[in-house]
């Protein structure tokens, strides 16, 4: 994105009086003082130093929202036309900062405490204990290892999605029908999918797939063998998300310049040659974008695992998210769970940054 100077130039001759400027500043600082005052008061009330106080922190939240609103209003009051421009981005920025940055800082604090919601003591800082516990927690490392497998499965999904996109891009009838049908799995909630496929179609006694396998002379068992269980989770996740990559790749295929492909045909390229030498290289930027986004979604994989196997057998299907979910659900271990999540976040940020560095040279469309 080029950002040298405004795309949309506005010229305004504005005189903002000093009193107007003072009013704006007063508004911001006044509401900020109100917010901080309330927060400190409430903190002291919770600590038991001040008797009077609110039951919850809700009023502090209202004061914060008042401050955020007046910050937006003050932009226009103080800066005039320039403030009106800021007003486009400021609400979203404030929203994200208050919902991400504060909780993350808070999470950093929790992750170094032994907070267990079941214990009445409340959070006690315990230094590096959680870290040591994590280092020795085989199940966490196992979950991380599983994430590697899950991410690698994206490559297979990509091949299938590319194949489907090519099919949809071919000269076919009823293209719209097929496109809608192929899109459907993406619409379904992972929870419904885990029941529809994981718990009913793959049910060992009555599920249709088990029946077919028994007809063929096999013995169906989907979630007792670690490798097969992991494969089944991958397959279900792939089933829901292949349409996502397919649509992106299809859009890429449809935007390809026709002349180049026709030129390759005139030059006598066979179908495979024109795919390998022309279509695939031209599709590289789209492919890389689709794969990167898919990997990012894959790193959040949890719903299906929680609902179908709860990580079993023996943690073979656990993703990091589902593992932490159970750490909280079964043991109410907020402190330790948060540390695991923070470590995971750090790993993800490193991984995605490296990934983007690595692939950025392919993401640029060749001129």
């Amino acid at each position, binding site marked *: *994105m080029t*950002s040298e100077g405004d795309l*949309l*130039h*506005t010229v305004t001759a504005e005189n903002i009086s000093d009193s107007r400027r003072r009013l704006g500043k007063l508004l911001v600082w006044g509401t900020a003082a109100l917010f901080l005052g309330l927060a400190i008061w409430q903190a002291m009330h919770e600590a038991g130093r001040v008797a009077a106080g609110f039951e*919850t*922190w809700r009023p502090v939240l209202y004061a914060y929202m008042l401050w955020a609103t007046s910050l937006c209003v003050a932009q226009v009051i103080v800066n005039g036309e320039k403030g009106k421009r*800021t007003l486009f*981005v400021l*609400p*979203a*920025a404030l*929203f*994200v900062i208050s*919902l*991400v940055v504060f909780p993350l800082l808070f*999470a950093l604090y*929790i992750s170094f405490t032994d907070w267990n919601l079941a214990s009445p003591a409340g959070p006690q800082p315990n230094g590096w204990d959680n870290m040591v516990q994590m280092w020795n927690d085989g199940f966490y490392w196992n979950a991380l290892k599983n994430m590697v497998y899950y991410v690698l499965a994206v490559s297979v999904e990509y091949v299938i999605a590319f194949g489907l996109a090519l*099919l949809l891009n*071919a000269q*076919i009838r009823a293209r719209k029908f097929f*496109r*809608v*049908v*192929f*899109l*459907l799995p*993406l*619409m*379904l*909630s*992972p*929870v*419904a999918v885990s*029941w*529809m496929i994981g*718990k*009913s*179609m793959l049910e060992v006694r*009555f599920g*249709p797939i088990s029946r077919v396998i028994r007809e063929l002379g096999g013995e169906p068992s989907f979630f007792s063998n670690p490798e097969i269980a992991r494969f089944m989770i991958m397959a279900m996740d792939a*089933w829901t998300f292949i349409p*996502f990559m397919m649509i*992106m790749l299809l*859009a890429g295929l449809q*935007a390809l310049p026709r002349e180049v492909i026709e030129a390759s045909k005139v030059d006598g390229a066979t179908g495979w040659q024109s795919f390998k030498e022309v279509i695939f290289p031209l599709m590289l930027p*789209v492919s890389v974008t689709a794969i990167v986004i898919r990997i*990012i979604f894959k*790193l959040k994989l*949890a*719903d299906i695992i*929680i*609902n179908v196997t709860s990580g079993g057998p023996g943690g073979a299907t656990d993703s*990091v*998210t589902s593992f932490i979910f159970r750490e*909280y659900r079964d043991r109410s271990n907020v402190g330790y769970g*948060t540390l695991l*999540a*923070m470590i995971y*976040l750090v790993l993800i940020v490193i991984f995605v940054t490296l990934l983007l560095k690595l692939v950025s040279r392919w993401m640029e469309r060749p001129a």
Partner: protein
Amino acid sequence: MSNAIFKDHDADRRANAKWWASRVAIYGALLVWTVICLFPIYWTITTSFKLAPDVMKGNIVPWWDFTPRWKGWESIGISPRLIGEVSTVREEFLKRFWNSAIVAISASTLAVVLGSLAAYGLSRFTYRFGFMRNSDISFFFLSQMILPPVVLALPFLVLYKSLALLDSRIGLILLYTLMVLPIVIWIMRDQFQGIPVELEEAALVDGLGIWGAFLQIVLPIALPGMVAAFILSLVLCWNEYFFAALLTATNATTLPVMVASQTGSQGINWWSMAALSSAAILPLIIVAIFLEKYIVKGMAAGAVK
């Protein structure tokens, strides 16, 4: 054939056979994948009309090897017999359905409003917040996409507890908005970049302010993109399970949580589970069939620059 005057050359006839072979292969592959996509949905919807023996015998085709019954739908209080009567299970189901609908619609609306404004600002003006310039701000918004929900879940659990927002719709709406905001900004930035600046310049010359130009000139043009972003957000919010499972208990529970909680207790109640799953996926299937154009448009926005 033999006394035709103009005959295809042998090579052409071979090409013809090859063409037919490729046709068969293409349609064969398409049909196989159609079955893969549709069978689970077909299985769920037919199972919701089955009785226990039908499930055990593996009957699949209605009216041919089993008689459809309303048993499954009766367990969530929706059937021709029960529709006029008061039913607590239906109340329960509708409450969850309603929660899902309100949360998904409000969160998507909020995300589209905030996201469109930010995307427009970033595509038209130069900002400097401290060291952050336009590209940094864009990256800041988009980088939220890699934030895994699990990192936010536990701090929010504690924060919401002290704010009395636990088990409330507003709490969920805020989180869902946060979750879909990067996607909305991504789609909308692409939209606004495709709109020529000259339009707004003309509007400014004619005396509109920048907000006037945005609301009256740019928004109507960008509307299809906004609809695409809205529908994509709607689908994501409707299906969200993780936050809803952690942050709601009784009042604000959404449909996915209800579906998931059924599987845990009382073994598997095939017909009622199937009915519940069908009811949870039907709205989205309808959305997919009628608004497919917008969903595809939204997802394709980032792919092709």
